[in-house]
């Protein structure tokens, strides 16, 4: 139904609008000066500084504001694109398992452990351009897949809830990853807990040296097309969709559902496994996370916003990284804390996933569409009323 799709778009648009509005109100309240001046003057000042903050927030990623005017913000733009890379990849992974209605939320652990193990390869395997890079990424994918196979196996064979197991295994992955870095790969010369540096030749090629714009975005977009093709064009993707839609029907049709439940979790684990190491290969050049960067959780937000459609995942990820970069820039130039972006995220997710939000409006438009098509319908002949 057309009204249905249109409505989904409207709902996302309005959710974003409301979230930005709420954000603005919070910024405004935070901007009210505490000095002892007239109320109206206070309001005026708060209004001015809130506008200033929002200017940075909404445009900072693309525009550099100077006294002389506006200029293109190259560093902001590159940061925006770079930050989207890992969360596009985890978004794809999560959208795969969500399509099969498997609530595997282990992307965070798969991503973290994949990156930690692949770090070893990036440090010790001789640096051959392309070959060693590919090998590092494949290692991370294999680790992600292997780690995802644990909840996958437990779900398929023992009917253990993949939500619980994958969630708990995130902690296992986190501490295992840190253990590997600390014990075997630590750079003792460095002042903080980081790994040794990667082989120079293994690093991803850069498009911009100064701000370290790496080709990760092309890898992420390539993966998007690949995942889209697998999910929408292959028999495997069709089977995944079918078990997600009605698992009993899939079984009745002759599909081995426990095999598919296992396979889709492992495949998504492979995708998620590569998310972290790609960022390290492109930007940092060593493993430096002391706490989990949260890309797996972002993947859940993105898959939800993208309605599990792989083609929408980059859009959702770019949107998320845009407001995050904007918030950071706002934090740098004003007194507003960049953490405000977490509030915006929460409001957007809440409104997008709340089924009842705007449902009345939706019903009215459906009523309208339905009654309109009714008038074209030849009415039933009424007769024989006694």
């Amino acid at each position, binding site marked *: *139904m057309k*009204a*249905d799709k249109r409505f989904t778009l409207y709902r996302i648009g309005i959710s974003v609008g409301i979230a930005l509005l709420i954000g603005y109100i919070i910024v405004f309240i935070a901007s009210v000066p505490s000095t002892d001046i007239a109320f109206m003057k206070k309001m005026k000042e708060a209004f001015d500084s809130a506008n200033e903050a929002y200017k940075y927030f909404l445009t900072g990623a693309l525009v550099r504001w100077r006294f002389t005017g506006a200029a293109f913000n190259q560093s902001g733009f590159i940061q925006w694109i770079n930050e989207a890379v890992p969360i596009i990849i985890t978004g794809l992974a999560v959208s795969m398992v969500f399509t099969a209605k498997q609530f595997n939320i282990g992307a965070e652990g798969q991503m973290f452990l994949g990156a930690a193990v692949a770090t070893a390869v990036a440090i010790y395997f001789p640096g051959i351009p392309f070959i060693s890079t590919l090998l590092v990424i494949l290692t991370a994918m294999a680790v992600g897949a292997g780690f995802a196979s644990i909840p996958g196996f437990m779900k398929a064979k023992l009917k253990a809830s993949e939500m619980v197991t994958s969630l708990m295994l995130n902690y296992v992955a986190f501490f295992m990853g840190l253990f590997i870095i600390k014990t075997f790969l630590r750079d003792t010369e460095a002042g903080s807990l980081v790994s040794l540096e990667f082989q120079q030749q293994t690093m991803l090629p850069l498009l911009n040296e100064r701000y370290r714009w790496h080709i990760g975005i092309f890898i992420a977009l390539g993966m998007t097309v690949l995942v889209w093709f697998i999910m929408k*064009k*292959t*028999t*495997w*993707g*069709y089977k995944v*969709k*079918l078990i997600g*839609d*009605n698992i*009993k*029907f*899939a*079984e*009745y*049709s*002759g*599909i*081995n559902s426990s095999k598919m439940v296992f396979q889709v979790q492992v495949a998504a684990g492979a995708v998620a496994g590569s998310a972290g190491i790609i960022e390290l290969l492109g930007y940092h050049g060593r493993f430096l996370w002391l706490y989990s960067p949260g890309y797996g959780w972002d993947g859940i937000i993105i898959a939800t916003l993208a309605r599990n459609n792989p083609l929408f995942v980059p859009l959702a990820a770019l949107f998320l990284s845009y407001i995050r970069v904007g918030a950071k820039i706002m934090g740098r130039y004003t007194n507003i804390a960049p953490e405000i972006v977490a509030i915006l995220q929460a409001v957007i997710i809440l409104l997008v996933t709340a089924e009842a939000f705007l*449902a009345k409006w*939706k*019903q009215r438009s*459906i*009523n309208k*569409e*339905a*009654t309109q098509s*009714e008038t074209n319908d030849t*009415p*039933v*002949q*009424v*007769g*024989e*009323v*006694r």
Partner: protein
Amino acid sequence: MADNCILEMKNIWKIYPNGVVANKDMNLKVNKGEIHALLGENGAGKSTLMKILFGIEQPTKGEIIYEGRQVDISSPHKAIEYGIGMVHQHFMLVPSLTVAENIILGMEPKKGLSIDIDQAYRFVQEQSDLFGLPVPSKEKVKDISVGMKQRVEIIKTLVRGANLIILDEPTAVLTPQETVDLFNALKNLTEKGKTIIFITHKLNEVKEIADRITVTRRGRVVGTADVKDISEIEMSKMMVGRDVDIRIEKEPAQSGEKLMEINDLEFTRTDGVKSLKGISFSLREGEILGVAGVEGNGQTELVQIITGIIPREKGRIKLNQVELPKITDPGFCRDAGLSHIPSDRMERGVAADSTIAENIISDRFKKVPFSKNGVIKWKEVYGFGEEMIKEFDIRTDSARTEIKMLSGGNIQKVVVAREFTAHSKITIADQPTRGIDVAAADFIRRRLVKERENNLGVLLVSADLTELLEVADRIIVLFKGEIVAHFKEVKQINETVLGEYMLGIKRMSSEEMGDL
């Protein structure tokens, strides 16, 4: 006339959130003390109209006038307050409680803090005497028959003060004997001043019991009439909008080789009830074998075991000379040449959020031309979907329509389109026409007969005895997990004879049954 009118529903519209228009400007007028039949095919909007009356659904537009005043029925609770009761198709009873406990649920007589159970039994006894509906008040609901459960439901509405009782397809689950009892009870109630609205799509029942009818079709009211002024043929014309030839012509069966052999099949449910006690029979080429029985006598388990959904406990099954393995695998059964029309289409027969075409290829997407090297050819898939829409007369504008947008009859046609085009030698049809409109049901029955004419075998499990007698060549009757009767000549029997075996009143000796 006007003062005699107890209920008037005026210009009712109902549009569901998914855009389905169930009621289009419907009007209904019911007189006090009559049995008013609401006749229509499934999807005609009659159930929705009654849900609105009972407060389960809210109308998009329209008004309800009950006992002379306009009412706003916002919930079933409100409806009960007004004196409107409803008996649903699926009973709302607690199986582990006694009949009396079920009846007084929510209005228990109290003695201190505990329920005064003796008074409850006395009260239920009084009420059932008053309305002439005897019930075994001390038995647990799970131990009583379907007909009795329905009676309990009716008393439940009566003790809550219902003056207008809605019965949603009450005879669908009953045997012929139980139906007679129900009709007597209903007539009795109208004599006591109660009004009854009777939802049905069975014409003979209308003729037998109703005073007036309102016929609905495709969400509109076609007309209201006195039953004595109108013939069954006229009713069916109003209902379907064209003449439906109810009889299906078919040649005598030319049964050939054995297609399916079932040997000594046993199954015990998780609750410990042995639902199949050593069943043996075979299905031959070119025949339709009917399986009759009151629901819950082993049919479900029989079908699920043959189709590989649940594992058997004991026994052997041969499909097309292939022995079925003990582990469950519906895919294996399909490969062995089995098609399956499941009894609950929404639970197992379709994926509601997928399109018609996606649903039709679910068993053959790996085969040419639908895919090649693991890549699906969507053009072929949707082309085939459009073909199926034409061939099976699925009412929709495109094969890209999602299943959830279709009516029950059309969803069943999607299931049937897939199963009949799978080129299987054996078709297991489990309640293939349950809850769908007359025209679609007729279409499906004719396809079943066509299968048989193509020398294929059909196992037809149905609660609709008329359908069994019409379509099947042989009939076996299941009672408590055993085959208690076998009719080789279906033409010589009728519903009453079948009913006696279904209720366990009679059973055949193995000599009488002969070769199964």
